[in-house]
């Protein structure tokens, strides 16, 4: 472990150096892109309230800084960012930071759980398919994986609601906890978990399908390697060969792909969070687009890009830990 530290530190250093320019680029690009959208928050507010007077609208725009030239708006935004200020929501009239922090835990919980579930289920199913390569179980699971890979998540979400909430009545169709239900403790946790089953399933199925196929191929490839034959020649038991020699190597590609998907899951949460009314960032982003609340949207954009950068750095470090060959080529 000690011998790994310099290499891992180097990997983390590389990731950190890349992070800052990436984040700034994303913010500036996002800022100009959002400026291209027709209308602003005041237009939407005006439409919702049945019409504002020109003076009132101008006052609102002035209050939110929307009447400034684009470049000075950007300069003001970047200055704020440098001080850790994400700006002010024109729609809700609260700081963007507090809006996001309120929704972040819900999103992280949902996507984090979905990631863990899909990695575990995907690896298990992939290993099973590889072990029974060519059998009916393998073929059936392959077809199922293809199906869940191609079905859109909103459709899966709706069908799960139809089956499990409406027909069977087993699980709630939306929300994150029973109103007036148990708070805290084990009962509160279980109540929360019941509300998570369907959203997590909807979000996971797509990724389970990808991971199962990935692990299946990786296992079939890994077990044909020469070092597996060496392990057999040592007289190791099949289970030891599977765990120590095949799985460890076969799961390397899974860590790469799953790490990259963490960002995608946060973003892909938009559909699932909207269908299930889950209080997360995805739904906040959706509401901000509808309300033309660009400061909030920019904040979410910045936060998710940071999360993706952090996730990628973690993947790099994890890979460095799992595979001693990673990060060696940079060594002088």
């Amino acid at each position: 472990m000690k011998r790994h530290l310099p290499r891992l530190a180097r990997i983390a250093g590389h990731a950190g150096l890349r992070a800052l320019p990436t984040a700034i680029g994303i913010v500036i690009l996002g800022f100009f892109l959002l400026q291209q959208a027709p209308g602003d928050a005041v237009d939407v507010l005006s439409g919702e309230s049945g019409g504002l007077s020109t003076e009132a609208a101008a006052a609102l725009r002035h209050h939110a800084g929307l009447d400034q030239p684009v470049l000075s708006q950007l300069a003001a935004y970047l200055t704020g960012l440098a001080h850790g200020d994400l700006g002010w929501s024109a729609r809700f009239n609260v700081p963007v930071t507090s809006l996001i922090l309120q929704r972040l835990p819900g999103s992280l919980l949902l996507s984090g759980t979905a990631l863990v579930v899909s990695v575990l289920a995907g690896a298990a199913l992939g290993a099973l398919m590889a072990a029974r390569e060519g059998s009916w179980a393998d073929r059936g699971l392959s077809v199922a994986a293809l199906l869940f890979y191609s079905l859109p998540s909103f459709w899966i979400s709706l069908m799960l609601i139809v089956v499990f909430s409406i027909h069977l009545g087993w699980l709630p169709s939306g929300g994150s906890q029973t109103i007036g239900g148990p708070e805290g403790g084990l009962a509160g946790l279980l109540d929360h978990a019941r509300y998570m089953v369907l959203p997590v399933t909807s979000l996971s199925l797509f990724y389970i399908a990808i991971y199962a196929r990935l692990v299946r191929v990786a296992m079939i490839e890994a077990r044909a390697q020469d070092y597996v034959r060496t392990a057999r020649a040592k007289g190791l038991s099949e289970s030891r060969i599977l765990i120590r020699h095949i799985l460890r190597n076969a799961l390397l590609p899974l860590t790469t792909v799953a790490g990259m998907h963490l960002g995608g899951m946060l973003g892909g949460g938009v559909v699932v969070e909207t269908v299930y009314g889950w209080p997360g960032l995805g739904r906040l982003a959706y509401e901000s687009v509808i309300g033309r609340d660009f400061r909030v949207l920019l904040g979410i954009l910045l936060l998710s890009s940071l999360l993706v950068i952090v996730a990628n750095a973690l993947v790099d470090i994890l890979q460095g830990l799992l595979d001693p060959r990673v990060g060696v080529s940079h060594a002088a």
Partner: protein
Amino acid sequence: MSHPALSIPAFAVPHAITPLLEVQDLQVHFGSKPAVRGISFTVHEGETLALVGESGSGKSMTALSVMGLLPDGGRASGTIRFAGRDTSTLSPAARRALRGGEIGMIFQEPMTSLNPVMTIGAQIVEALRQHQPLSRTAAKARALELIDLVRIPDPKRRFQDYPHQLSGGMRQRVMIAMAVACGPRLLIADEPTTALDVTIQAQVLELLDRLRRDLSMAVLLITHDLGVVGQWADRVAVMYAGRKVEEGDPSALFALPLHPYTQGLLRASPRLDDAQHYTQGPLTEIPGSIASAAGQDGCAFAPRCPQAVAACRAAVPSLRILESGRKVACPLAHQD
């Protein structure tokens, strides 16, 4: 240290006549395609038998059958006896005890035969602890001795290294250390030096030869390199298209090859002492390819044989034992 350094287990030899390894009429098929078509040979305690032949002659499949490690789709028939026991009657657990315990094996590809994500120390320790009740510390100490035994400098540092940090020759030494870790009675070396530089080849072969004396192992050496055979083997068996065509003492066999295939093989190998050195003229070759043996009735070498007669294509020539002890599967061969 509580245990003696790499002591050789004292084996009681039950019957001096019983060979250590006895292979009888071994056949290996992949689907309907034969890879080995009935080969028999024996290896005695402490002896080095070289199995020689070109690619596709079935020598590697023979070695893998002895280990019970045929690739998927391969079926073996015939009997393989190790120390008097028929290996096909052994339980899976007993077969595993044999592999890596009493029979060690090293492979042709040192670059890919080690697990890239495990330290070489861990891989040697794994082999040790599979067959011997050693504590972690004892196993590590023993692994360090083994690394030293195969002449890798600085064992303590190398123990922590991953395969990619080692050269091909070093990796093959690690493979050898793993194969001899549990003091096997038989070491199967499947083209152990083919993938290595010429200078490293000699070192590795020398190491193998020293180890087999020090650890009193028998060695089944699979190779296509006749130079290797002449120098290191006690006995040589030449294989062609899944059958043994000639067997005998290496120096006698090289001096007077009797089977037309062995003659062709020797003519095709450049030798420094040869009057017809390859710088002065083209190398001799055996016309045709081993693929012509497929579906062939009679002698598999007949399509390429300059001396073939009609009888050669009618029936597979049986292996005759000549007065000198030489075995040859050619009706035309005779010792003058």
